[in-house]
């Protein structure tokens, strides 16, 4: 179906990898194939997205947040302190980005306006939900979405390759 690419993009917003989004799309098709034909008839697109939304929310509740943390769990490493200066080893799956690229990422975030930077850091880097970010910052959830979105636009413009 020609909707498939759109659905994969839809799922990709919350899954940790493009492959996981493909898996969800596949699962959606299996679910839809199992429905009686009459159920889908009057507005198929609306129906498909209703099922897709439920599927995604169920399956990926907190997954994006967990992904940020999972990296940490796997890379967890205790270091005995000799003094205050201790080198911290990066987690294995974080080696993916080169040092130079990491510097670009850090600089780009550091130069965001303060509120945008804080919202983006809490949500994307610390893994807080929109609601938790809003509570921490003492602003509304809508404002958090606005800040994170503005931050993402800025970062995309700077960092897209």
């Amino acid at each position, binding site marked *: 179906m020609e909707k498939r690419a759109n659905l994969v993009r839809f799922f990709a917003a919350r899954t940790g990898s493009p492959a996981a989004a493909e898996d969800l799309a596949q699962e959606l098709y299996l679910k839809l194939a199992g429905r009686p034909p009459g159920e889908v008839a009057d507005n198929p697109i609306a129906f498909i997205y209703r099922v897709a939304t439920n599927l995604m929310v169920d399956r990926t509740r907190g997954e994006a947040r967990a992904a940020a943390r999972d990296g940490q*769990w796997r890379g967890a490493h205790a270091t005995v*302190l000799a003094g205050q200066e201790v080198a911290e080893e990066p987690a294995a799956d974080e080696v993916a980005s080169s040092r130079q690229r990491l510097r670009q990422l850090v600089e780009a975030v*550091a130069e965001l306006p303060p509120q945008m930077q804080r919202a983006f850091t809490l949500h994307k880097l610390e893994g807080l939900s929109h609601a938790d970010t809003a509570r*921490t910052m003492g602003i509304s959830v809508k404002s958090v979405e606005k800040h994170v979105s503005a931050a*993402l636009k800025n970062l*995309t413009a700077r960092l897209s390759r």
Partner: protein
Amino acid sequence: MTAGSHYQDRMTEAADWVVRLQADDLSDVDALAFDAWLQADADNAAAYDAALSVSREFQANARAVRQGLRERRPPRTLVLRGRYGAFGALAAAALVAAVVVPAMLPATSTTAYATATGEHRTVSLADGSKIDLNAGTQLSVTLGRHQRQVALAEGQAVFDVTHDAGRPFLITAGDRTVRVVGTQFDVRRRAGHLSVTVTRGTVEVLPTGGAQGQAFRLHPGQRLEHQEGVQGAQVMAAAPEQALGWRAGRLVYRDQPLSVVVADLNAQFAKPIRVADPALAATPVSGVFIVDSEDAVVRRLALLVSAHTIPSGDGVTLLRSETPKR
């Protein structure tokens, strides 16, 4: 259509969609609107893909970027470093405020918090940090100008500490101090046994009050176990729900001695649980306990360690079964 001429608008919309689709309250109305947006212009999909790819990259490198941000020292804040380092990020405009603020800070005072058996309590501190106290917990909080200090006398709490590089957050628990900058972690001190579990950020555990031993730096997913008065400490891997489950009425253990489980349960229930002999108390326990009724929890626990229970005085005693299953 708008192809090419409204590049900025398209990028704004693309970022909005990435964020909206990740929102807690996503609905199928959003999903349909997203589909329509993709459909409206062939270039929209590419803009969305670019924004999502950047979002992903940050997620995958979250920890390294956080560390990079911490280590980064913007030159303009050097003026403030030292005395007013905590306000550095606020930049030049804050300079005036930084000079005024210390005079307006209230005098340092200490507040004590305690929970009774079976009671949970969440405390929000003036600096934005949050402490979830488990049952049977006593601690006191002192928010000073140069450091934030908590003394954990007994019990267990999850700390969600607001980042403030100029004011470290210190928790003293017996002969160890836990030092933190901004993170989330669980500290448990019951009957002279300390455990610290980190779920986010980095925490240091240091010998304190003249005690001997090594200092440790803990990362997310790690737990430190320490017996007071002993020089050493063990660091092991721990799942987050092991440390934080109690807040949702779930106690999670992996290879913890029965004595630890019983100490936790005794903080929840009025009728004390006792363990008859030391060998049984040392039996390792792994499992998840839903904290519902005490009778039910004790029954499940007894099954798990092949013990039987007898009522004793005001509580219940766990006894090793005569014929332990092999």
